[in-house]
């Protein structure tokens, strides 16, 4: 029996900010969920199950927060699942929800991811003082910066490429009312003059720390037929993982990322992603990851990704727009960041992306990764239902 086609009929998110001191965690997730329901013109009673995701519990210090969030998300008396795959969790949460619809376990599923980073300190949460180990590392930037240098060495990319990505994403964010950073006076010179934190990564090439939530309503063909606005159809979705560190790991272009993309393209019948996909919303917490992922996801040959960035192909008006929403570089409620990528892909093919809409976007890829380039989750959504 073939799978049930999965449609996105509702998308909602909070206005992402550094600290939402006016709401509890329950109030934060509720806001995004209510907006997704409103978009779908559905009520809590129309939801059959809830799938929620967030990054490590240390990021707020609430163990298993999904338990206390059941009533805020209308999950009482319904199945509720929590997913955790580090930074990629927003993506894998959406895929777990989509699989419940595809398998005809449920007709309509609410999926949501969040982080309220202001309640803790992610840098603390990621660097516990483990006995017998030598403390050396200064945050996630310190972990990823050597991989960026390795990419530059491998490809010969000029050292300005990272600043071009940051300048582009921050300008895209100005068109997105939900983005955290709205730097109206941004210039390329300012990006390039910002301090080096973890050379070769500059301050302006790093993501902020945000409070926010993102939700989607996923449904089957019957649900899509009742939807008030055009649905986004899932054409392919996959997850892959590999160890954080192992002998032979390619940290610049991890095998798990390549395999994950290949699986999505196979499901969706994509022969040439560069030609067949109209836009990409990818997980870029440090600017250089745009060219790195362009290669990893097959949009450019190895060593050629930076040329797409440098020549303007990935600009909002370019031939392959990347991170139309402003990306993780402009908004990073960690657990929600993957789902925001997936949701932006859906908004684009629904024609609902507002000022950052890519004209005529028919097939858009949403991408997330997490851990030490260890977990990958991706989906391709389209404006037309899948063929088979």
């Amino acid at each position: 029996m073939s799978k049930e086609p999965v449609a996105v009929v509702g998308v909602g998110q909070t206005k992402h900010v550094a600290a939402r001191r006016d709401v509890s965690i329950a109030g934060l997730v509720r806001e995004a969920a209510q907006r997704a329901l409103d978009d779908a013109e559905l009520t809590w009673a129309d939801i059959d199950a809830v799938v929620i995701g967030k990054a490590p519990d240390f990021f707020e210090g609430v163990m298993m927060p999904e338990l206390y969030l059941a009533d805020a998300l209308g999950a009482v008396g319904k199945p509720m699942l929590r997913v955790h795959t580090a930074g990629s969790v927003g993506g894998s949460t959406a895929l777990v929800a989509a699989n419940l619809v595809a398998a005809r376990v449920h007709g309509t599923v609410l999926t949501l991811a969040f982080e309220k980073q202001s309640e803790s300190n992610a840098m603390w949460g990621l660097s516990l003082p483990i006995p017998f180990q030598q403390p050396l590392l200064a945050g996630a930037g310190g972990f990823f910066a050597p991989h960026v240098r390795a990419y530059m060495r491998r490809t010969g990319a000029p050292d300005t490429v990272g600043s071009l990505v940051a300048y582009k994403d921050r300008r895209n964010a100005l068109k997105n009312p939900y983005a955290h950073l709205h730097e109206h006076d941004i210039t390329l010179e300012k990006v390039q003059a910002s301090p080096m934190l973890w050379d070769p990564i500059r301050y302006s090439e790093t993501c902020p720390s945000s409070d926010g939530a993102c939700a989607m309503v996923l449904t089957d063909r019957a649900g899509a037929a009742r939807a008030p606005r055009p649905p986004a159809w899932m054409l392919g979705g996959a997850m892959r993982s590999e160890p954080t560190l192992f002998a032979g790991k390619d940290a610049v272009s991890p095998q798990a990322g390549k395999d994950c993309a290949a699986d999505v393209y196979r499901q969706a019948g994509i022969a040439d992603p560069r030609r067949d996909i109209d836009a990409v919303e990818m997980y870029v917490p440090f600017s250089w990851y745009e060219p790195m992922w362009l290669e990893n996801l097959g949009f450019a040959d190895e060593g050629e990704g930076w040329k797409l960035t440098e020549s303007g192909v990935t600009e909002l008006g370019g031939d392959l727009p990347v991170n139309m929403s402003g990306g993780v570089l402009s908004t990073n409620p960690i657990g929600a960041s993957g789902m925001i990528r997936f949701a932006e892909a859906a908004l684009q093919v629904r024609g609902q992306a507002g000022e950052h809409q890519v004209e005529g976007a028919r097939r858009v890829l949403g991408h997330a990764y997490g851990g030490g380039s260890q977990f990958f989750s991706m989906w391709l959504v389209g404006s037309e239902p899948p063929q088979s």
Partner: protein
Amino acid sequence: MAEILKAPLAVEFPFTRSLGPVQSAFLTGLRERVVLGVRTGDGRVLVPPVEYDPVTAEEIRDLVEVAATGTVTTWAWNHEPRRGQPLDTPFAWVLVRLDGADTGLLHALDVPGPGAVHTGMRVRIRWAEERSGAITDIACFEPYDGGPAQATGHTGEFEDAITGIVAPARLDYTYSPGRAQTAYIHALSERRTVGERCPSCRKVYVPPRGACPTCGVATAEQVEVGPRGTVTTFCIVNIKAKNLDIEVPYVYAHIALDGAGLALHGRIGGIPYDQVRMGLRVVPVWTEGARYPDHYRPTGEPDAEYETYKELL
């Protein structure tokens, strides 16, 4: 075999909570010796109050005051109170249905022994002398002979309501790095770096983990690597991290020790930070009494060719 290492690990952080409107009213109420519940769509009063109706999922904001007296609905005796619990002498954990409420509030009951507590007994709140707007403003419950105390009919509107609290959390672990890393650490005390070779792929893991993550088999064969190695990639750290006592800027590098199947991480010294480069040949520098090399310094050899280390980034 040497004894496997163990050490305490305390994970501790003062988490902050923004309360939202309902928890804000509830905790501010406790400060003022007022207990608030919330009325649900089907007319029940929940204490402590929640923001969303558990039956209809609707937002609920109808706050109602309940009495500071109530009835024990169930209990369990706590023989050995632990740090941070409401009382430091043995007490009963109780669920108390306060007069006017439909649900139980979890708290401590101060009685001399388990014989002095029973389901259905009447109790009242013993307020803390100093109250800040926290659940600890209720010091505990105590036995009480009498009917419902009068609630004042408070609406839940307060001047200078609290909007956030600090919720310190602490978890105490006993951490052990396991057999393989214990051997690695013991070897370091002799200034030797000893990894383990995978019997399947033949790669040498440094530090060893006791298993090969790609082949999924146990490793046992010990192999000494280094002491020399190659900087395969690095970054220059310009910001100081909390709890990290290293002067910035410093170079954080991936170093493939000669013979190792993957790079380990270390600091580069003995050379200006802006002259460090991929391919630099280095050797560890030890300081007296330290568990790990303090840093790695250049050996003076010619740089390694990129082709020789490009798989070890």
